[in-house]
Each structure stands twice: as C-alpha cells, then as structure tokens.
C-alpha cells in the first residue's frame, strides 16, 4: 500500500500524484520506472518516475487517463492508497557530459524527461529542452524543467503556446543553429519515431524511452518486447531506454494496440 500525499491536475486528463514510497525514493535514478496497481483486482501498469524526495520519502508520478487503470489511479485522492507500487525498475539513464543535449518530450512524456534534464544539466551539459503538446493547456512541467534548461522551446500543434508546429520542428531549429551532441526523446511512439528519423539524417546520437505494455515489469512475461537493431529486447529489464535509431517503432506501435 502506498499513500497519496498530494494531487495536482495538470489538465483535465493529466494528473500529478506524489506518493509515499520511501525505499523507491531512495534508490531510484533518472530513467527508472515503477509498476503500479490502483486497487485489488487492478491491472499492473508501468509509470515512469518524474521526481523523488528522499527526505519526504515520496515519488512523483504523472499519469494521463487513457484507460480503465489510469482512470482508477487518477481518481485517487490524497489520503487514499495505491494497492501496490514496486520499483524502481529498468536501467537508469546513462548520464555523462557530452556537450549539448536536446531533451524533447511530448504530452506526459515530459514527466519522465524531467529527471533526465536535471541529471544532464548537473553533469555539466548545455541542455535545450523542447516541450510539445497539442494545445497550450496540455503543456506540462514548464516551470519544473526551466531551472535545469539553458533554453526551453515550446511547440504546440495549434500555435496556442510557443511556436506552432511539431516537436520535430523545434528540435530541427536547434540542430540547424548549433552543434548538438545528443538528443533524448520521450513521448508517444509516433513522436519518437519521427524525432529518430530527423536526427538520423543529421547523424546525432538519439536515445528514446519506451513505454510498452508490461505485466510484471521484472523480465518475466515478455509483453514489453521490442525489436532493437534486429534483436528482440525486453524493455522492462534492458530498457526502457534504447538507441532511437535502432528501434522498430512500427512494430512497437502495433504491439501497443494489442488490447485495443
């Protein structure tokens, strides 16, 4: 059981929860995720850790309501409990000083990007953050990423905030004007696919974080498998981060629809 300490609505369907999980708060690193079960009888679903407070013993999760289970999680109020939270799972992000890092996130993908932005900045990189959303209301965590970014570029599909255009437009703008050493992309599979296509053209190393279907999250079921560089890999224990240029995103998108 894990008590909800606080709750904030980023938008109608996107909720930030701060959850009591002292052991996870202490051991998590950027890139890690947890598996959460809202209630008894609930599904086990993976959620990336957006932030953690070791002293308070809490972790921060950002959840978008998309199905039965995320709805149940988003409906929980402070004082109530998640039936289960387990983690941190997956491999932590490899953080080093490489020069200039463009971190681009779409939708709730910005949440797992936040700890990576922080860690990249702390490692001494120049960090340019590109946040993308369909519309102004869906831009999240802008204030949280700002202190750790040398520049924040906001892109919206409808132009209601920042510039009008897709995440790839924002990333390309940076690539064209300065030398970029690494791109980190987290968001919907289709977004990561096009970011990878763009950066491949410029030959810039690019890392993505995959949010596939999982059951146990510890390597046992294989539901999360993806093809990377022609080989089957398990996102839960070998990922969630992979070389974006080698991921078969089309296969991944097809597998994400397994239960739709």
């Amino acid at each position, binding site marked *: 059981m894990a008590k909800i300490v606080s709750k904030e609505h980023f938008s109608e369907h996107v909720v930030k929860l701060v959850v009591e999980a002292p052991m996870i708060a202490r051991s998590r690193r950027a890139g890690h995720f947890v598996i959460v079960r809202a209630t008894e009888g609930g*599904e*086990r679903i993976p959620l990336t850790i957006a932030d953690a407070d070791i002293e308070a013993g809490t972790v921060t999760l950002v959840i978008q309501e998309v199905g039965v289970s995320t709805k149940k999680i988003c409906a929980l109020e402070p004082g109530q409990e998640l039936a*289960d939270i*387990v983690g941190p*799972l997956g491999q932590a992000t490899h953080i080093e000083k490489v020069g200039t890092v463009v971190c681009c996130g779409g939708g709730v993908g910005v949440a797992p990007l936040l700890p990576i932005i922080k860690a990249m900045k702390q490692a001494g990189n120049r960090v340019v953050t590109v946040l993308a959303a369909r519309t102004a209301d869906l831009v999240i965590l802008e204030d949280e990423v700002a202190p750790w970014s040398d520049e924040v570029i906001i892109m919206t599909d409808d132009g209601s905030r920042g510039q009008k255009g897709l995440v790839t437009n924002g990333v390309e703008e940076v690539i064209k004007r300065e030398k970029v050493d690494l791109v980190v992309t987290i968001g919907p599979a289709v977004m990561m696919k096009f970011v990878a296509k763009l950066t491949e053209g410029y030959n810039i190393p690019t890392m993505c974080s995959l949010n596939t279907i999982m059951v*146990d999250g*510890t390597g046992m079921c294989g539901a999360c498998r993806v093809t990377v560089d022609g080989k089957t890999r398990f996102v839960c224990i070998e990922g969630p981060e992979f070389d974006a240029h080698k991921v078969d995103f089309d*296969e991944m998108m*097809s597998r994400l629809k397994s239960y739709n």
Partner: protein
Amino acid sequence: MENCNCNTHKSLAPRDAEWRDELRRALPAKDRMAIPRVKMRELDPADRLANPTAEVNMGLTAEQAVQEATRCLDCPNPGCVSGCPVSIDIPGFIKNIQRGELGEAARVLRSTSALPAVCGRVCPQEKQCESKCIYHKSKREPVAIGYLERFAADAAAKSAPAAAATPAKDATRIAVIGSGPAGLSFAGDMAAKGYAVTVFEALHEIGGVLKYGIPEFRLPNSIVDGEIDALRALGVEFLRDVVVGKTISLDDLREMGFEGVFVGSGAGLPRFMGIPGENLVGVMSCNEYLTRINLMGAGRENSDTPVMTGKRVAVIGGGNTAMDAVRTARRMGAEAMVVYRRSLEEMPARVEEVHHARQEGVEFMTLHNPLEYLADEKGRVRAMILQRMELGEPDESGRRSPVAVEGAVEEIPVDLVIVSVGVSPNPLIPNSVEGLDVSRRGTIVVNDDTMESSIPMLYAGGDIVRGGATVILAMGDGRRAACAMDEAMRARKSNNK
C-alpha cells in the same frame, strides 16, 4: 534428508515403533499386494471447461486412503525415500494414514517438506518416489504416494491449524529473496530452526510460480495460501512489492541486520525461438498468458487485466507449462493444440498432464516445428508455418532428435500463439551483486552440497541455480541450503564466542 544430522530432520515415526511393527504383522504382504492401486477421482472433462478453476484431481476418500496406505509394505530400506529429492519419510507418513493418525502423518510430512499439499499435487511422483517402489519388482503398480501425500496434507490443513510460533527476540535474521517453492521451503526450515526469517517478494502476491504459473485447476490458490499461512504461523514474515537488487540492495539487507541471504528468484525470463513473426500481436510467452490469467485473474469478473483468448490457439512446446497453457486455453473457450517437434514419447510433460489435456479435447501436433508466423493486415497473427519433423539419432539428452522432413511444410490458421519453449534465469540478482559468480547461462554458481554462492552467507537454489527445473527440486535446494546455512551460522557464532 541424506547426510543431514540437524534436529529438524530426525525421524518422527521410527520404523521400529511398536505400532508400526503391529501394522506390518496385521496383514501378510501377499494380501496387501493383492489390493489394486487406488484410482484418483477426477472432475468430469465436460465439467472442467464450465468450471475453469475447479481442481481436476478431486483427492482420495478416507476409505481409499487407508486402503492405499495398507498396500505399502513398509520396507526396511524404502526405495521411495531415496527417489524423493527432499527425502520425505514416506513410509512414516503412509503408515500413520493407515492407523488413522492424520495429524501425525501431516507432522511427519511437514518435518521434511515445507509444502506437502503442493508436492502432493505437482510433483512428478511417477519419475521420483513411485518409480522406486518395491511393487515394480513384481510388475505391479506402485503405491500411490503422491495421492496419499496430498490426502494427509489436505486432511491436516482442514482440521488443525499449525501451532503458532515467534522467533526469539535475539534470533539471527535471515532474508529470503523470492517466495516460490525454493524460498518457501528454505524459509520454513530456517524458521523451524529458530531463525527470524523475512521473505521478500517482487510481485504483489506471495507464492511465485505456484501462483503466477501453475493454474488453479492443478493447484488451487487456496492450497498455496494455506501453506503460506502455515509458514506465517511459524513466524516467517513476508514483504510484497520489494525487488531485491532494485528497491533495496544486498548491502542494504546486511545493514538491516540480515546475516544470511537465500536467493530463490526463479527463472524469470521466457525464451523465444527467434523466428520471423514472433513479435506479432497475438504471439506471447506462456509466462505472459498464464500470469495474466492466474496471477491477475484476467477473464474473471473483478479483474481489470485483459487477456487474448483466441478462437484457435497453438501452444508451442511439450513441457508441463505448455500443458498448463493449452489446458487453460481450452478453459478460456478456444480450440487448442500443442505443437511439439518430437513425438509424444519424448514429451517432457507429465503423463497425467497429457492424459488430462487429451480428455479436455486438446489436439496434439507432434513432430511439427514452427518456422514462421504470418500476420493479417492489422499486424495480428493469422497463421503459422509448420515444418514437419521426423526422429533421427539420439542427441546429448538421450532423446531422439527431431530432423526436418524436406519440403513438408504446412500453413495452419491460428489467432493466438503461446510460446512455451523454456525460460532463462532472472538476471536481476546476478546483475546487481558484485563479486557473485554467475555461469554463462546466467545461473548463480553454488557449491552443490551446501548451495552457498561465491559470496559467504549468500545461498541460492531453485531455477536461479538450475535454469528451469521442477517445484520439488527447488524445494530440495531450499532444504539443503537451510541445513548448510544453519551449520555455517552455528560454526560462525561459536567461533565468535
């Protein structure tokens, strides 16, 4: 247990006890041998599909059990005990059944097996204890040891709850990683020896493969929970949702005051064959299929977890897990078939499982091997391409190896494929502990006698050491490790004095 002199394993029912002598003399061996072997009562095949979680084997009646127990000749050198990986005092518990002392029978069982109700159901007795029964020498069917074990364990669970115990305040603390058969067996033995045992489980349920893997129609969850409650009563503590190696490290455990650690983290990783189309939607591991249904309750009213049921399901492989998956698929309403590359004779699954699968209408495509899976326009599996095989020369396993019949390839329509071709050890612990000796296959290397790893006071057993074996072998490992760790702890403490 062989070579074990610890107090836990002293005989509770010595053969020279007066009551046993009387039983031996009460009926001549010839008369006992004339009694036919008992038949297990089974749920009617038609009722099984309508009651997907109902246990197929229904257990013996008290009369059946006493009669079967009477068949046992109470040999002076019982072969059955040597055939048991945990050396259960088999005649000791069987003779207690015969004289009607079921509580005593269960006590004998429990003194050598932490999970008798589980073993009585899922052990391959026909390859172990029963294969060594003296009855084989006169071409008779062996004593039904497995049925009797189950009977005694169930009867005792129904009547008397296990006596409660709590470890002493200054008891040495021991951590167990994983709550499957190896971990539970180790935990039970260590608690009985007076240690303060805490079991860490990564999932939200205790029981490991007994819960997520083996279906309820073969091993009801209530039975597993009963065994776990018995361990709780012995003072064993269980913590769920903790992944040792991730949530906490081995060093953390030491800091928390755990002086000994046993790793029974199992064979987590499902294997695939690496053939085209294996990542299509509708192709999944047996672990995923069974976990969704057994652990997550997919298909039941109060569960949010979805599962693909399929109309025509193919299960690839011929082991017990393949049988569990294919029989589950029948219960989920699908036409279901097993695809196995050798013949029925080489199939590693228990004879009983194959028999039950056939009764339930499972089709067996033996001497076939998948080459490729084909997708429909939505990327979902629609068919499999099978290569017909024939048997060639025996391979290193002693089984005749399958050889492709040139040109004999066929396409079979399917909408769900469950791959059950084995598992690899879970890499979480091997990868997270520095200095731990790990084999090329990813298993933890241990001393075969003591189960101690390259790190002192870190023991391991079950599939994380064996790479994919049986419940009973895992339990045997737990038992051996408990004896050895206890001895090592005592030696260490007396040296420190």
